[in-house]
């Protein structure tokens, strides 16, 4: 154990350790005062301490080295730097030199990269920045960022940084060597964006993003190197004007540097967005945005700050010689080389880039920092939208312009159609059907590329019909276009089954999104059949088809088949992809939602939480898929009455979705609807109604009036008004919802009897018994068709029918159905649930009408008590319960109690 002697040794060690050898001796002489043993102890420890690099160097990065005369930088291989020995020169530049190095203590034979700053470049100011920055950089811990492991000041007083050694090739060379297609390049690049976003969130700007700083490892993992190093080497010019290094050397690479960097303006995260854009430019087009070889700095400044680079799609057909400093041609970039490296032809590549991809790149490279993507994440998310065939943010103006006449002529309703149309078309061109994994063989990827182009050609033809310039006067709707496409697909592409299946699948999804379920079903089924026949039993496209068909079946109420299909898709994806994987997570999220809808709450939760975890990790918090899973989880919390938890999740999802998708999006509308539902349940009717209106307005604009989601909004607005006691308004809303549902589904859909029951209920409350009776009877008939007799929904409807019978003086007929309903509902719901209170009240009124007063009274009082507790004194339901008691006492001949309750109601 601790002894005084031990403490004394520690203290003394501490005191003398930092002193220079002479002072140490003096201090030890004094302190030990002839105690030779103590002195020997301390000296041996000091010796061990000085005997660095020690075993532990990797965790201890702050130790300073002694002064040695500086050595020639050219030949430092074999030299010791900190705990490392330099082994091989990797690269050398004006500011410093990068070596491959290895730890010398032999503990972990770990290869690292060491960046040594040339001693001539070191200024006191730089050393200070170095210390501050190193701490920030050491905290960057992201799987796509090369990690800063250590750093210090070498024997020649020059700072050095120890970095994770990445065995990789620059991203542009990697993509070309692996012949990655445009989609594969985009997916890889998206990861780089996420890494940059991660650093930006931690307030680290890279400042020098370029292909040679983005290495791709053999397994395809990108690693961003040298984060923030530029800041260590060069202070902001705007920040510290007096610093010599910052004016002498600017930390950028002209090819990828933003105008503001070249001008020497304030550097923000926007410089990284610009450079990312420039990198993407080269990855897609094979050319650099500007030709800056052998230009002077002022010429470069003029070009970059005043000219806009040509759109990527236009340069792919050019031939460019890249010359070295000596004026000799180093490489020639020509259309065939470029397109071959992307697994396509020059013409196809040009078509692929033209439009959305051009817009995305140009948006990132805008002259004005504030007009670029607001964050690297937004950049990534736009790429994501492109890949998924969703509308992108970049260049929306241009698309609007193209459809300007169409929109102007057709006002609000049709501009919604245009939006729907655009997303449909984007969906058709999308890569949903394409191979999603790079490891699927290259030739398959190429075939996919061809397919995607076929698809887009097919669509361009469709569009030609709809082009406002070509067919003035008659504007087809999205539905018309789809019908046209679906009609044609039967006769076209018969010899290309996969392309045909891809089109059918995409159109099926489009029909589904428009709420036209029968056509969606036909197309998705057919697509699945073809895919199975052509691709064999296991394929990611088949999993996608299964999963989308399951979504459709969920929407049409066929939960059994939806569950089977989703589980099949999940199993297939698990067989194809390694976990965690976003497509597996997507399936899990869908399955969780489905299980929840089937009331299997406990089974649902782990799927939803697992999906959320994966999506947060792989896609980030703001990704639409993550938001969707949050929403599904919120639904589950709602079902277990955790309203605050549900509200918080929905608000998070809503903010993220608005950011990622914009305000006018069906997902945003769904989240608003759900938020309204939670607030309604919490009793905040006014706010709930406000959000529900907002949701309905978006839905009507984006989806059109005849859409099941619009029916949902109407139904929920009806519910809010019902609880407010505005029965007339509730009736109107319920009727609108019902009319839409009947138009869309006919009668054979579970949503129809549910809607009928709601309408019947409000008609009862309004005393419109003649109208209520056929409505409730039909509701009961239809519900019984879908659900077993002991299902709570059947029981609840049966209770309503019983109530109607009581209200219309047919209590003897009501007694049996109400009793049955009460027994079933009591098994399903907790005693204080409003449904229980409702059915007890109805049964109580029934018994009272049958003059079985003793049995009736406790039921009526209990109904009042729990309604009061649930809904408060002024709620219409509470007042209804009180009225039933008044009638009861009156009939029983108890005037005092009647008066007492009347007084209570009057208040």
């Amino acid at each position, binding site marked *: *154990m*601790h*002894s005084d002697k*031990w403490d004394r040794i*520690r203290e003394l*060690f*501490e005191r003398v*350790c930092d002193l220079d050898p002479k002072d140490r001796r003096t201090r030890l002489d004094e302190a030990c005062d002839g105690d030779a043993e103590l002195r020997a102890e301390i000296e*041996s*420890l*000091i*010796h*061990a*301490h000085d*005997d660095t690099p*020690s*075993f*532990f160097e*990797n*965790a*201890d990065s702050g130790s300073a080295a002694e002064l040695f005369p500086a050595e020639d930088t050219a030949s430092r291989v074999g030299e010791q730097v900190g705990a490392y020995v330099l082994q091989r020169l990797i690269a050398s530049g004006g500011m410093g030199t990068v070596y491959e190095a290895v730890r010398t203590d*032999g*503990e*972990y*034979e*770990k*290869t690292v990269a060491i960046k040594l700053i040339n001693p001539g470049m070191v200024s006191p100011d730089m050393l200070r920045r170095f210390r501050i920055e190193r701490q920030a950089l050491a905290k960057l*811990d992201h799987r796509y960022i090369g990690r800063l492991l250590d750093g210090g000041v070498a024997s020649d007083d020059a700072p050095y940084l120890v970095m994770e050694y990445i*065995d990789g090739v620059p991203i542009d060379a990697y993509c070309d060597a692996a012949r990655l297609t445009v989609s594969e390049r985009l997916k890889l690049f998206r990861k780089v964006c996420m890494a940059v976003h991660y650093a930006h969130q931690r307030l680290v700007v890279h400042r020098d993003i370029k292909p040679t700083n983005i290495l791709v490892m053999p397994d395809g993992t990108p690693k961003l190197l040298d984060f923030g190093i530029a800041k260590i080497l060069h202070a902001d010019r705007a920040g510290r004007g007096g610093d010599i290094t910052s004016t002498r050397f600017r930390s950028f690479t002209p090819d990828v540097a933003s105008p503001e960097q070249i001008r020497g303006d304030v550097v923000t995260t926007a410089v990284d967005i610009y450079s990312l854009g420039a990198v993407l430019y080269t990855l897609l087009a094979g050319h650099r945005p500007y030709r800056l070889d052998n230009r002077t700095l002022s010429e470069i400044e003029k070009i970059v700050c005043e000219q806009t680079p040509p759109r990527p799609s236009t340069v792919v057909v050019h031939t460019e010689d890249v010359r070295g400093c000596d004026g000799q041609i180093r490489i020639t970039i020509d259309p065939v080389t470029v397109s071959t490296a992307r697994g396509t032809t020059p013409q196809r590549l040009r078509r692929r880039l033209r439009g959305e991809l051009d817009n995305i790149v140009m948006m990132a490279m805008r002259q004005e920092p504030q007009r670029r993507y607001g964050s690297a994440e937004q950049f990534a998310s736009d790429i994501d939208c492109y890949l998924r065939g969703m509308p992108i943010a970049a260049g929306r103006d241009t698309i609007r312009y193209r459809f300007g006449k169409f929109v102007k002529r057709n006002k609000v309703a049709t501009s919604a159609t245009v939006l729907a149309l655009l997303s449909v078309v984007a969906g058709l061109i999308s890569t949903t059907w394409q191979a999603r994994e790079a490891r699927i063989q290259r030739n398959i990827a190429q075939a996919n590329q061809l397919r995607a182009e076929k698809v887009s050609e097919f669509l361009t033809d469709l569009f030609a019909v709809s082009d406002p310039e070509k067919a003035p006067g008659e504007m087809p709707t999205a539905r018309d276009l789809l019908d046209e496409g679906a009609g044609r697909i039967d006769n076209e592409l018969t010899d290309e089954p996969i392309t045909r299946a891809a089109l059918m699948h995409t159109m099926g999804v489009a029909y589904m999104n428009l709420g036209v379920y029968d056509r969606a079903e036909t197309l998705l089924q057919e697509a699945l059949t073809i895919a199975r026949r052509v691709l064999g039993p296991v394929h990611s496209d088949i999993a996608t088809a299964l999963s989308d068909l399951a979504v459709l079946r969920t929407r049409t109420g066929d939960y059994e088949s939806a569950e089977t299909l989703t589980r099949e898709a999940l199993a297939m994806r698990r067989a194809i992809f390694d976990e965690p994987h976003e497509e597996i997570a997507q399936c899990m999220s869908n399955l969780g939602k489905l299980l929840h809808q089937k009331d299997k709450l406990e089974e649902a939760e782990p799927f939803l*939480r*697992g999906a*959320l*975890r994966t999506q*947060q*990790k792989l896609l980030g918090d703001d990704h639409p898929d993550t938001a969707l899973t949050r929403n599904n989880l919120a639904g589950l919390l709602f079902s277990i009455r955790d309203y605050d938890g549900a509200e918080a999740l929905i608000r998070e999802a809503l903010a993220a979705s608005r950011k990622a998708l914009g305000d006018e999006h069906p997902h945003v509308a769904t989240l608003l609807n759900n938020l309204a539902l939670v607030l309604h349940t919490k009793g905040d009717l006014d706010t709930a109604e406000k959000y529900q209106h907002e949701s309905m307005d978006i839905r009507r604009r984006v989806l059109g009036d005849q859409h099941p989601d619009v029916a949902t909004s109407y139904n929920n607005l009806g519910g809010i008004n019902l609880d407010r006691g505005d029965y007339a308004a509730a009736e109107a809303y319920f009727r609108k919802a019902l009319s839409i549902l009947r138009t869309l589904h006919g009668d054979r859909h579970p949503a129809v009897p549910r809607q009928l029951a709601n309408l019947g209920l409000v008609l009862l409350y309004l005393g419109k018994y003649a109208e209520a009776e056929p409505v409730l009877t039909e509701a009961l008939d239809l519900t019984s068709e879908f659900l077993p007799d002991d299902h709570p929904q059947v029981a609840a409807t049966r209770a309503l029918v019983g109530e109607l019978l009581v209200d219309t003086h047919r209590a003897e007929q009501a007694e049996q159905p109400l009793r049955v309903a009460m027994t079933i509902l009591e098994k399903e719901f907790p005693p204080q649930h409003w449904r229980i209170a409702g059915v007890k009240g109805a049964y109580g009124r029934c018994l009272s009408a049958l003059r079985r007063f003793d049995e009736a009274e406790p039921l009526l009082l209990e109904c009042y008590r729990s309604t009061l507790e649930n809904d408060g004194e002024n709620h219409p339901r509470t007042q209804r319960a009180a009225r039933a008691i008044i009638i009861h006492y009156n009939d029983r001949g108890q005037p005092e109690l009647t008066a007492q309750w009347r007084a209570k109601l009057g208040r």
Partner: protein
Amino acid sequence: MTTSPEVTKVLAKLGCGDPNAARELLPLVYEELHSLAKRYFRTQSRDHTLQPTALVHEAYARLAGGASENWKNRAHFLAVAAQAMRQILVDHARKRRTAKRGGDQANFSLDDARDQVHAQDERLIALDETLGRLGDIDPLRKQIVELRYFGGLTVKEVAHVLGVSPRTVDSGWRFAKAWLQREMTKED
């Protein structure tokens, strides 16, 4: 799948200062780390050596990932993981030493890399034993070493876990390193 919800629960308890929580967490973490380490050991080539602290952080990401961004929970977790890591590394080194001596494995030529691995193992075992002795004399400093070296915790995190000032951690770390270095070289 990982045992994340369980870990999250235990972490919450740790955060509330429940001393039993660490004991509950250790087996969970040990298991996770062990399977991770096994994978690394198996795929390990000369270029990609095991980085224990990286493993510890990976284990954290896998077990508690996403569940909590709370750095205090993270520090507590890493503290437990550090203990587990030490155990795993030393166990592995001992096993490899036994295997070498047992001579029961396939016959490869003894190249440099193997000698180096051997030296590392010996050193690790020596460190473990010396650290054990340090623990007998001065448990606090032993813990500092364990957390810093095996757990990859920062000074601030160590200070938080042990409830001492960062200065104490800093000087303790320096002293303990010197002492261990001396003790270990003494035995050579």
